[in-house]
């Protein structure tokens, strides 16, 4: 049985609960308007809440995200739907939009869960943890991650064996295996799209051996290893649990590369790699860190100084794109590259390779608009009405875009962009009244 909620009205619908969506929702709500924030994941905070530290200030990502996230969570004018997706948006009367939202069942009654984690202890099913980027496992009854918001459990029904162990130990009896999809229809005056980006999947570059060689990881996996809520409490290579001594960064993995279909620069990889290199210097003081690059793009305020700081700390920078990676018997990796400064071909041995994966568009909004046409740019990001003069407007009047849904950008730019989008959205609400 599908439970259909009667039509609910909000001033604004924000699609996506990452840092840009949160910022936009907060701005709109603080101006006195009601907001529905829809997030497909089980927690808001997006990718930022999972980061270790942020460049170029080395602020702790979790520490600066969580206050913002809890402010939104407690806000009286913001309604948050996690584990939910916007299925359709269409134009309705009086310049309003009608949105169909699907709330996937969590199999836990949100209001009753205290986040005590007893269900996690009781659950006998171990699966790979997507929030730790598959470095470790989790249970089928789980809290997504320790600083998740809302911090309530969910049952992963794909892997659940329905043994009932969690139900027995739950002190508030909040586990409900009979939950079904909820369908909401909401009426809003404006929509802000903040669907963010996808990370490049390096399985698409078999010559780097990701997925085949255990000691080739992605930058997001390294990010988790360096985060305060890290899985191992130190940096280990996944192949044999050894602490790595010679770590390599392969920049432009899946960016600036037409052979994998993404010709543009991802704008963040140089800087996050430099940041991770600096953090590694602290986490593993004896380790050598080498960054293989095509160009170092340190264009923002304080970015070049941050790069020079890494140079000063002894991070190796080598100009040359990695052509291929070969695994040795001991799990070490041979990286083949041409040192462009000397013109010589080299094979360098490293014991851990981090692929600095790039930013790809999130195409989830492609089929959401029904009688309206949301245009995309050449690279499938959402097309801005005018990237310079009207960066937050889209091809649909009343629908605005914030953050990396428009293209690669860093956190400060995403927040700025969310500010612009929320200002536009508020002005649209006022005009439509």
């Amino acid at each position, binding site marked *: 049985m599908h439970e259909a909620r009667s039509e609910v009205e909000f001033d604004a619908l924000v699609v996506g609960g990452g840092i840009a969506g949160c910022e936009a929702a907060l701005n709109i709500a603080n101006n006195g308007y009601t907001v529905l924030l829809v997030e497909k994941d089980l927690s808001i905070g997006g990718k930022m809440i999972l980061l270790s530290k942020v460049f170029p200030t080395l602020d702790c990502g979790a520490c600066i995200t969580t206050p913002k996230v809890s402010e939104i969570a407690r806000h009286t004018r913001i309604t948050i739907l996690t584990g939910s997706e916007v299925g359709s948006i269409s134009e309705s009367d009086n310049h309003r939009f009608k949105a169909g939202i699907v709330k996937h069942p969590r199999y836990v009654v949100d209001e009753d869960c205290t986040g005590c984690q007893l269900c996690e202890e009781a659950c006998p099913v171990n699966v790979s943890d997507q929030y730790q980027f598959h470095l470790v496992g989790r249970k089928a009854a789980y809290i997504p991650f320790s600083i998740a918001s809302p911090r309530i459990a969910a049952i992963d029904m794909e892997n659940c064996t329905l043994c009932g162990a969690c139900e027995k130990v739950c002190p508030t009896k909040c586990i409900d295996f009979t939950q079904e999809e909820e369908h909401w229809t909401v009426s809003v005056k404006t929509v802000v799209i903040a669907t963010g980006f996808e990370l490049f999947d390096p399985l698409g570059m078999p010559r780097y051996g990701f997925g085949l060689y255990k000691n080739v990881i992605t930058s997001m996996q390294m990010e988790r290893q360096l985060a305060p809520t890290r899985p191992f409490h130190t940096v280990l290579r996944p192949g044999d649990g050894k602490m790595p001594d010679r770590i390599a960064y392969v920049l432009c993995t899946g960016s*600036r590369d037409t052979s994998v279909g993404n010709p543009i620069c991802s704008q963040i990889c140089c800087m996050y790699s430099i940041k991770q290199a600096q953090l590694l210097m602290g986490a593993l003081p004896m380790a050598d860190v080498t960054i293989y690059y095509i*160009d170092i793009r340190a264009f923002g305020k304080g970015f070049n100084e941050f790069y020079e700081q890494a140079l000063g700390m002894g991070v190796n920078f080598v100009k040359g794109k990695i052509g291929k990676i070969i695994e040795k018997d001991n799990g070490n990796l041979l990286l083949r590259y041409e040192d462009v400064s000397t013109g*010589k071909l080299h094979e360098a041995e490293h014991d851990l390779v981090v692929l600095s994966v790039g930013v790809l568009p999130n195409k989830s909004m492609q089929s959401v608009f029904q009688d309206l046409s949301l245009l995309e740019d050449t690279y499938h990001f959402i097309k801005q009405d005018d990237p310079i003069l009207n960066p937050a407007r889209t091809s649909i009047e009343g629908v605005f875009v914030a953050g990396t849904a428009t293209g690669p950008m860093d956190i400060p730019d995403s927040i700025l962009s969310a500010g612009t989008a929320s200002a536009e959205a508020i002005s649209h609400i006022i005009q439509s009244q």
Partner: protein
Amino acid sequence: MAFINSELTEELKKFGIFDFSACYNCGNCTAVCSLTSEDESFPRNMLRYSMLGLKDEITVSLKPWLCYYCGDCSTYCPQKAYPGELMMTLRRWLTSKYDWTGLSGLLYKSVAWNVFAFLLVAAGVIAYAVCQNFSLEAIMHAGHVFEMLAIAGVFTLILLPNIIRMWYVTTIRAGIHAPSKVYLRQLSELFVHMFTQKRTLSCDDHKLRWFEHLILVIGYLSLLFITVFLNWFETGSVLINLFGYSVSAVVFIVTFHFVLERIRKTKEISMFSRSSDWFFVIWLFLMGFSAFLVRLFIDLNLLEQNLWLYLVHLIILAQWALLIVPFGKWTHFLYRSFAMYFQRIIEDHSNLSKK
């Protein structure tokens, strides 16, 4: 100090396709190449030389010949600059530089000149046939004598001087004065590479390409040998006859596959075809096929009534021997193997000097 010569890029474009503005110098092409080594790395440096117009650096270099065009550099090029095709272009350009007559350059650059030259040779053959009153016996005899003369003439007048020019620019002008014992010691390399193309085996791509190329070379050389020295068309020996049939079949079957691949354009190596590439594979195919048919018609006693067939074969043969072999793509057979030979001499010599 190097001076930028923008004319070279314009000249190179006449020999092939390359987008000089695409490359952003990441070195990926060199790093993915299976043949490049620490001492001999390519193709990125060749690309830089070409962009900057450093003619002398390219002329003395053997690197374009050390590339066997598996196409990995082009497949994985992040900028779609097609470095593999640039190496091919440089081989064409170098061929025209080695050639003292200058005709190679003319035929590589201009389709019109190609058509004119091919028609001229065809006209010559027909004129000769008219003079002989279309007597099959006389023409066949002349054809056989022509083959021998053409081989000797083309080799001594064109190919040998060109190889010497290649040797001069790539070793002597590059400052390599190796003693003759080094030349003798490495002589085996020349023949190994000439007859086996074993370097292709180090390429990462399909081994089928090496095998096809190998049997084509063997088939072609055998066909040449039995028509010229064993006089296949007039022999009574069943053994030679059967051998002739099989080697000519190998030639036209393999080249048919090559032509097909160039039409399909599924691999990097067959994606860009210039007139020189088309002439080379199609004429090789026609040679094998027409030779096969001529002998078949002889065996069926049909050639007397079908003199045209032998004339067609002779025209193809003359065009092949007078145009494609001395000035066209055929020369890569020699330049590639000599490049490997000279390369080993240079390496051997530098090892000796180090000691």
